Every structure is written in structure tokens, then in C-alpha cells.
């Protein structure tokens, strides 16, 4: 994972050292500018990216500027099991994202097939509903799309379109039950404040079937890691659908509508769909029946060592990383230092619930100098694991969960 190589801090430190003799504010300003322009080469064709610090964000990998999309460097996931708000990835679909929001004036409209339509402020959510908290991974459907072979068009992420946060809010089902769900309700659809530049562009509207919308872990969240959501992550409220891909986690949520039909707009069909089979895969060029993308599959990553890292032969190195799945919870993590020939059980870190990142650690002692292919593979509470070997393919670049490899050099 070469994207780890381009940490902006390293460049800034180098610059600060080199220019220490110069001193003064002018140099500091120049150093800050240089750091802001730090580049990184992701390990893919057309993978040159720059780092930039957007408002409320530390320097992140800029994939696109408008709609803004920012990728989290893998090294961030080594800092802790929760992803800091200022490092959390950003992904918008439409050109017009509000940059100034009055959280007190914001209202969420609840309507459609309900007995009593509601108009809820954040204060209403805090005062009139049970407050709940849940640790959950938010992962873009297209996370790792750039690593697909053959490549597919779309947002060309490597592995950093994901993050784990402690979300606080109220259950969606409590809100829907207060409004009173009427007979014939099939789905709930969600809209946020982002708007297309032209009225001819389909608005970004997503829908969940009633059974998913009514699950107890689905919440309307006003807090992320104990703080208000950054604007770029959906201030003042977003939907949180633990275990499901981020496409359903509507940001700046303003409209909840219970409908008696199946939503069929562009963003539900044909966008955000996967092959309707067990592997969510298909051979390039072949067509296949599709369903809306839904629950996340099992993934795991090494976060403490980057591609090409050097370590000491004949010395114990603790390797560390994260694992997660779509809600069954991580039960085992296996670590290999020989490209998957032999596997050892890793030690699991604190359990923050089935929807959270789970930290793992494994000891590694390179018996001699040379190159080692480190791999990690997780197993969830449903017995599901990751794919070994060449990655499966689908035309939209969704649901990659191959066992990833980090090559290191023991010296």
C-alpha cells in the first residue's frame, strides 16, 4: 500500500530541518505551503494525488475537488480503532454541497405513508427520543476500486475510503414508529441537502427496504466520535446504517419518506448494484442480474507496516492492523508471513461491537534477511472470510475483499 509512503508530516519535518537556520514566519508559511502540496503516487495507473487540508480536515489524499472526495491514508488506521473526524474520508455525489449550515434551524421532514408527518430539529431528536450510541464502520461501496484488474471507471480509490466512528443519535425506527407507519409501506427513502448543478441531473436519493430500515442499529446520528459531524461528513445529521455500505448513510439528512413502491431512480438502479450471486462477481464482458449493494463483506488490513517497509531480521516485530465485516463481528484473524502458505492466529484487540473495526496484533520474526509477503485474513461470526488469490471482479468495482499483501524487507 504505497499510499502510506506519502505522509505529509515527513516532508514538512524534512523541510523544517533543512530550513531551521532561516527561521521566521515567512519560512513557516512556505513550509506549510510545501506540505499542502505534498504528492503521493498511489500504486495504480493515473494514481498521482496531492495531499491537502480541507476545512475541519488534516491533510488527506485529494481524489477529486468537486464534488469533493478525500481518501484517508492507511497509516491513519494505525493510530487507533476509531478514525479521527479530521481524517475521515469524504465522498459527495453532486456539485452543490452546502458549506454553511444552521444546525438549529435544520429540519428533517418525515412523511409519506405515515399517520402523522413530522418535522424534526436536532433538539427534538435529543429531547424526545432514546439516545443511542454505536461504533460502526462507514465504507464507500467503491473502496479499493482503483485496485480492480481489469480497471473499471469510477472513483479511483485505493483502500482509504473507509473509517470507523462512534456514532450517537436516535433509532430511525423510533422516529418512524412515532410518525406511525401505514399499511402498504415497502421502503423508506432518504434525501440530504446536496443538490445537483442542473435540474436534469438525478438528485441523490437512496432507499432501504422496511425490514432494514427498522433494524435497531440504524440511527439518525448527530454526533461522531463525541463531536458534531464535520460539514464534509454530513453535519448536522446523517443516517448511519451499520454493516451496510456508505451509499445508504445519507449525509445532511433532511427528508425521510415512507413509500409504497420500490425506489428506482438512477442511484438505486442501475447505479450501486452488484451481481446477484454469492460472490457478487462476474467475468468481464458478461452481463448478469443485479441487486442493490447492501451488507459489507469481510476485510482486514495491516496498518503498522507499509509496502516496501524494512525491518530487522531475527528480531521480533509486532505487526498490527484492523479487521471488520458487515455485522456478524470478527471472530478470528489469521496472519501469514510467507504469502499465505502458513497461518498463525493473531490476538484480537478490544471488542467495540460487531459493526466496529477490530484491532489485531501478531508477532513476526524474520528468520533471515530477505523479502517477506505479509498477509492477513479475518473470519466473521457467520464463518465468512476473505477471498484468497486473484481478486474477483464486477463492472462497478464494488466489494473487493481479497486477502491483501504487504511486502517487507528484513535486513
Amino acid at each position, binding site marked *: 500500500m504505497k499510499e502510506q509512503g506519502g505522509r505529509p508530516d515527513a516532508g514538512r519535518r524534512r523541510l523544517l530541518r533543512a530550513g531551521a537556520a532561516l527561521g521566521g514566519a515567512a519560512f513557516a508559511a512556505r513550509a506549510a505551503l510545501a506540505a499542502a502540496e505534498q504528492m503521493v503516487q498511489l500504486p*495504480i*495507473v*493515473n*494514481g498521482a494525488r496531492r495531499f*491537502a487540508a*480541507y*476545512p*475541519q480536515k488534516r491533510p488527506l489524499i*485529494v*481524489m*477529486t*475537488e*468537486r*464534488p*469533493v472526495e478525500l481518501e484517508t491514508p492507511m497509516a491513519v488506521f494505525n493510530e487507533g480503532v476509531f478514525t479521527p473526524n479530521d481524517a475521515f474520508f469524504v465522498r459527495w455525489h*453532486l*456539485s452543490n454541497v452546502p*458549506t*454553511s*449550515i*444552521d*444546525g*438549529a434551524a435544520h429540519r428533517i421532514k418525515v412523511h409519506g405513508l405515515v399517520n402523522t408527518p413530522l418535522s424534526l*430539529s*436536532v*433538539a427534538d431528536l*435529543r429531547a424526545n427520543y432514546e439516545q443511542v450510541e454505536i461504533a460502526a464502520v462507514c465504507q464507500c461501496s467503491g473502496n479499493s476500486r482503483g485496485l480492480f484488474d481489469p*480497471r*473499471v*471507471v469510477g*472513483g*479511483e480509490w485505493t483502500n482509504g475510503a473507509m473509517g470507523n466512528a462512534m456514532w450517537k443519535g436516535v433509532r430511525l425506527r423510533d422516529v418512524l414508529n412515532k410518525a406511525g407507519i401505514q399499511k402498504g409501506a415497502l421502503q423508506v427513502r432518504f434525501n440530504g441537502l446536496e443538490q*445537483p*448543478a*442542473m*435540474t*436534469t*441531473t*438525478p438528485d441523490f436519493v437512496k432507499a432501504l427496504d422496511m425490514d432494514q430500515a427498522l433494524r435497531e442499529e440504524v440511527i439518525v446520528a*448527530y*454526533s461522531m466520535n*463525541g*463531536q*458534531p459531524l464535520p*460539514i*464534509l461528513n454530513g*453535519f*448536522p445529521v446523517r443516517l448511519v446504517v451499520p454493516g451496510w455500505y456508505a451509499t445508504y448513510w445519507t449525509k445532511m439528512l433532511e427528508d425521510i419518506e415512507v413509500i409504497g413502491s420500490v425506489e428506482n431512480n*438512477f442511484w438505486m438502479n442501475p447505479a450501486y448494484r452488484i451481481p446477484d450471486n454469492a460472490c457478487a462477481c462476474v467475468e468481464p464482458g458478461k452481463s448478469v442480474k443485479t441487486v442493490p449493494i447492501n451488507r459489507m463483506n469481510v476485510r482486514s488490513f495491516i496498518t503498522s507496516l507499509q509496502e516496501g517497509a524494512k525491518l530487522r531480521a531475527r528480531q521480533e516485530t509486532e505487526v498490527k492492523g484492523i479487521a471488520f465485516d458487515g455485522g456478524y463481528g470478527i471472530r478470528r484473524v489469521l496472519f501469514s508471513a510467507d504469502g499465505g502458505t502458513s497461518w498463525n492466529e493473531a490476538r484480537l484487540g478490544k471488542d467495540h461491537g460487531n459493526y466496529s473495526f477490530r484491532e489485531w496484533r501478531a508477532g513476526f520474526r524474520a528468520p533471515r534477511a530477505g523479502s517477506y509477503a505479509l498477509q492477513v485474513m479475518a473470519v466473521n461470526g457467520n464463518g465468512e472470510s476473505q477471498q484468497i488469490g486473484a481478486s474477483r471482479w464486477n463492472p462497478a468495482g464494488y466489494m473487493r475483499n481479497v486477502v491483501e499483501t504487504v511486502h517487507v524487507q528484513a535486513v
Partner: protein
Amino acid sequence: MKTKFKKLALALAALGLTACVTPSVADKASITLPQETAHFKPGPGSDVATTYCTICHTADYIYMQPPQNRAGWTATVTKMRHVFGAPAGDAAAKQIVDYLMTQNGKQ
């Protein structure tokens, strides 16, 4: 004085009383996005691409893609017109495809 304040802060933190430094969730929030830097590189058709494509997105949406052949870029431009409503006519669409082939094309 400084030490005292630090002690107080630690005591408050120990009691979980950090709410005093946590901004209210109902606060107004406002940001200013950085100036856009991702522009189409000069060349025949870059003005047409800028006119139509950047209504909805910056040029980095093109440069980050894996190189596309003519059929690939034509499919993308067709999607932009017919699904997303880009107001480019047939002539402009052809100019855009030609330009994209010079920017990120393959045979």
C-alpha cells in the same frame, strides 16, 4: 496559574465533564472550500470540455480514470448527456470525446 488550570481541566476530564469544551450540536457550521485547481489541460477541445463537464465536476474526474479507448470515452460522454443531463449536443459531444482521447485515451 497555568498549572492550576491544567489540574482543573484534568479533574473535569476525569469526571467526564468535557461538555463545556464540546461545541453544541446545534451550532452553525460554515466552511470555505479551497480554490479549485484541477483544470483541463490546454488543447483542441479543452474549452468545450470545460464548458460542459465542469458544470458538475472538476477535471480530476477524467484524469484519475484508467485510460479509456474511444468506445469507453464515448460511453461516458453519452452517460453524462443522457443520464446526468449535460446540455452538450452531438457536435460538442464529439469534440469532447476527441479531446478526452488526447488527455487520457488508449487504442
